[in-house]
């Protein structure tokens, strides 16, 4: 099994964190993983993306040319990566910020992650909502690992942060149930 993911959006949306999150889950499940962020010149509002690869085999190039999955947080991200979409590609877009699409693919999924995150009063967790959707759609990872890694990554944060993230995750997951 090899899963190559590109996550893209704007700085501040949690693009890189989500990539690390997926990498850590893969790692926890004993897979080989690589995660490669972009490091652009712009600090805020700039275009941001990262590559995450999870595999049973040795990973040679961490650069993802033909992604298995695209997780796209906004229109610009979609515009940049739409050419990488083929019939096999799983695409999850945040429909709140990606409106102008050309949906000619069976694995194309839209979820208004912004709205959902707002509804649970935790707008920062938009990326976790997106992950929930991805998790549900692809079914590659175990849910316990997700919670474990989530806990580990939130270590030191306020008590209820984990719970709030868990809810965001579950909302995303439920959306495609």
């Amino acid at each position, binding site marked *: 099994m090899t899963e190559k993911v590109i996550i893209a959006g704007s700085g501040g949306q949690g693009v890189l964190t989500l990539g690390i999150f997926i990498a850590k889950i893969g790692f926890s499940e004993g897979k080989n993983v690589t995660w490669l962020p972009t490091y652009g*010149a*712009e*600090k*805020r*509002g*700039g275009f941001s993306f990262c590559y995450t690869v999870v595999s049973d085999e040795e990973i040679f190039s961490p650069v993802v040319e033909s992604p298995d999955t695209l997780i796209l947080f906004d229109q610009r991200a979609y515009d940049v990566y739409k050419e990488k979409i083929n019939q096999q590609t799983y695409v999850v877009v945040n429909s709140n910020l990606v409106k102008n699409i050309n949906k000619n693919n069976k694995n194309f999924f839209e979820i208004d992650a912004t709205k959902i995150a707002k509804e649970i009063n935790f707008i920062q967790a938009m990326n976790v909502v997106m992950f929930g959707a991805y998790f549900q759609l692809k079914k590659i990872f175990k849910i316990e690992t997700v919670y474990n890694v989530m806990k580990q990554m939130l270590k030191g944060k306020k008590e209820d942060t984990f719970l709030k993230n868990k809810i965001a995750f579950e909302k995303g997951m439920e959306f495609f149930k």
Partner: protein
Amino acid sequence: MIEKIIYKKPDSLTDVNFSYCPGCGHSTVHKIIAEVIDELALRENTIAVAPVGCAVFAYNFWDFDVTEAPHGRTPAVATAIKRVLPDRLVFSYQGDGDLASIGMAEIVHTANRGENITVIFINNTNYGMTGGQLAPTTLLNQKTTTSPFGRDAKNYGYPFKMLEFLSPLEGVKYLERVKVTDAASVVKTKNAIKKGFSYQLQNIGFSMIEVLSSCPANWRKEPLDSNKWIEEEISKVYPVGKIKDIK
């Protein structure tokens, strides 16, 4: 109804949007430099030297001639351009990492030679472009990505007051510290820059304007809070005002 436009984007700016973060002081200073150049009708007569730092992209935004110096060497590059073309307006634009850290020797010698150039010095108390590391101008106790426990003088030295430092040099003719936290201070900054440029046109010699400038991204503050921080903390350590003016 008649509409008369009374404020617009200056002609010396291109149509390219600034790539700087929301509320970044670089944007404001870029804009007012362009305004001053418009007002002095110098667009066709100006050569700017951009630094290495967030403002390395200045060439995308200014519609006059711009080159880019190696990190910190900005004043040396500006010096040579001015010496070769003494009737052009030549200014260097530098961040506090560029000017006060790696470029210390260059700015000091250029000032001491009294080169007839104008230096715009953007003090945002950190290295914006590379992700908010300590700069010589970082405040004591300020946390940065390389002073995660706050700047302590013993290990990292003291906040560097460049203008006060350069002030005793004979070649230096005009030094002023300004800020761009509200409309009034923006106007003052504009006047200071205009003065620096016009001194140069009058061959008076070296001038430098330090702008206390916000870096909301690395300070991890909203733009308004960033300006407040300048008012409340930064300008305590770096008081605004004229430091030297020898006409």
